[in-house]
């Protein structure tokens, strides 16, 4: 097992990479909201233009962004086909028990565009932001929730520790697998049921080792005076600079335009 890239961060030094992760996080949410606000071709064209500009600014090669579509391709096609076949209205084509209607085509295309833009828009965020920055941003943005006794700091700490341990555990799985293959374990042949069952002897030692690691880590953290989020300072606190405020302004302007489009029924 070679290099494991976490998330899908694409290292670069573009303006989008340098933006504060909170700006990107909020921007992504606003963009998703806007996709469901606009319902006209001109609105989609605008969302498409914004997306194109963002992709250009991110300096991430287009194929990385398209690759992010792969996992959702099935859902995308599924939704489109259902919308295409099951929407009542002016019939265009009729075959077997299906009727393709004018409304169906329109709805399917809209749905497709929405989902595709949604996935690509959020993948721009994950491609330009490291998982750690994202965790920091979420901890910071959700901090007010701790007022309602939501353990925001603890959840963020858990996320970042999980991120750090994923490669270690993947490596460990590989090691256990090889050790068992060396003693004649068979992970490759047989049907699905057999292959899943052959994973059980892999999972038991993996869990044991994960718990042992967790125990060690907890002790190491306590030894270094970790006692939750209270009274804790940050080495790399998030700090807004001028460009972040400009980005916020642009985000708000975009949202305003979308709302105007919605109100005017464009």
């Amino acid at each position, binding site marked *: 097992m070679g290099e494991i890239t976490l998330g899908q961060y694409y290292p670069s030094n573009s303006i989008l990479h340098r933006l504060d992760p909170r700006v990107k996080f909020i921007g992504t949410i606003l963009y998703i909201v806007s996709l469901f606000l606009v319902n006209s071709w001109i609105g989609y064209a605008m969302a498409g233009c914004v997306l194109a500009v963002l992709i250009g600014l991110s300096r991430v090669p287009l194929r990385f962004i398209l690759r992010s579509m792969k996992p959702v391709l099935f859902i995308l096609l599924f939704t489109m086909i259902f919308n295409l076949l099951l929407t009542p209205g002016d019939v265009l084509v009729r075959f077997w028990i299906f009727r393709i209607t004018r409304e169906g085509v329109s709805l399917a295309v809209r749905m497709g565009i929405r989902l595709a833009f949604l996935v690509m828009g959020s993948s721009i965020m994950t491609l330009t932001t490291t998982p750690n920055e994202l965790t920091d941003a979420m901890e910071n943005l959700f901090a007010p929730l701790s007022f309602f006794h939501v353990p925001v700091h603890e959840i963020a700490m858990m996320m970042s520790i999980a991120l750090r341990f994923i490669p270690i555990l993947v490596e460990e799985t590989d090691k256990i697998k090889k050790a068992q293959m060396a003693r004649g374990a068979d992970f490759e042949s047989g049907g699905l049921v057999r292959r899943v069952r052959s994973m059980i002897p892999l999972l038991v030692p993996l869990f044991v080792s994960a718990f042992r690691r967790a125990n060690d880590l907890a*002790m*190491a953290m306590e*030894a*270094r*005076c970790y006692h939750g989020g209270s009274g804790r300072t940050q*080495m790399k606190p998030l700090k807004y600079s001028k460009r972040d405020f400009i980005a916020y302004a642009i985000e708000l302007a975009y949202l305003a335009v979308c709302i105007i489009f919605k109100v005017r029924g464009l």
Partner: protein
Amino acid sequence: MPSIIKAEKLGYYYVKYSDDSENPELINAIRSIDLSVERGEFIAVLGHNGSGKSTLAKHINALLVPSEGTMWIDGVDTGQEEDLWKVRQKAGMVFQNPDNQIIGTVVDEDVGFGPENLGVPTDDIWKRVDDALSKVGMLGFRDRSPGKLSGGQKQRVAIAGVVAMQPECIVLDEPTAMLDPNGRKEVLQVVRDLNKQEGVTVILITHYMEEVVFADHVYVMDGGQIVMEGTPREVFSQVDVLKSYRLTVPQVTELAYELKTAGVPLPEGILTIDELVEALC
């Protein structure tokens, strides 16, 4: 000024539930330990597996609290709940497995973890991190992911993480057990430099004899008790006694001992190759 570490009649018990028997067993991990360490000393604790040396180490950092007796770190009783963080700041701890004690995803973030917990202001954290990383010779690796470092380098990062908390003493619990010989050398050099140049008190827990030759004072543990203590020379001159505790002496000392029993006139407790050469030629 009080001793940096002082233990009086220290004992620790825990209850072990075995799979087959209904009755839980009371295990006595360490008992009646008296210890006194002065500032700036380099102390080594030797012992076979299960001798209680790790349990003792965890008492210094207040990860374990004594069942009987008392442990003071710089005059602070580790049994006092309210002084817990004070004790842990004064006595830093480095563990055996380098992977399981690195918290950050980038080297400098990991070193900053301790000062963050202590509530040090951001600017000071950066100063401390720079300082700690340069002391262990890892400043050039600050932006790296810890996963990509060698074992010795990871352990040096772990040491830097403790140094950044500006402790009075550092306890290292078998820090080299999972390292290759080169990694072991790196780590030991860093530890010795910290002791000599920074005056940090070092408690090195190990079962490698070669590592304790430079210590000021050696304690040997067996069955939860301190069974021998003295300078490395005093301890290593008693080869037979050490062997009865299932410990071996450094190769050179062993050779000198064998030569001596075979009739070659040599002084007691030879610790380094140079000394043996000197004595023989």
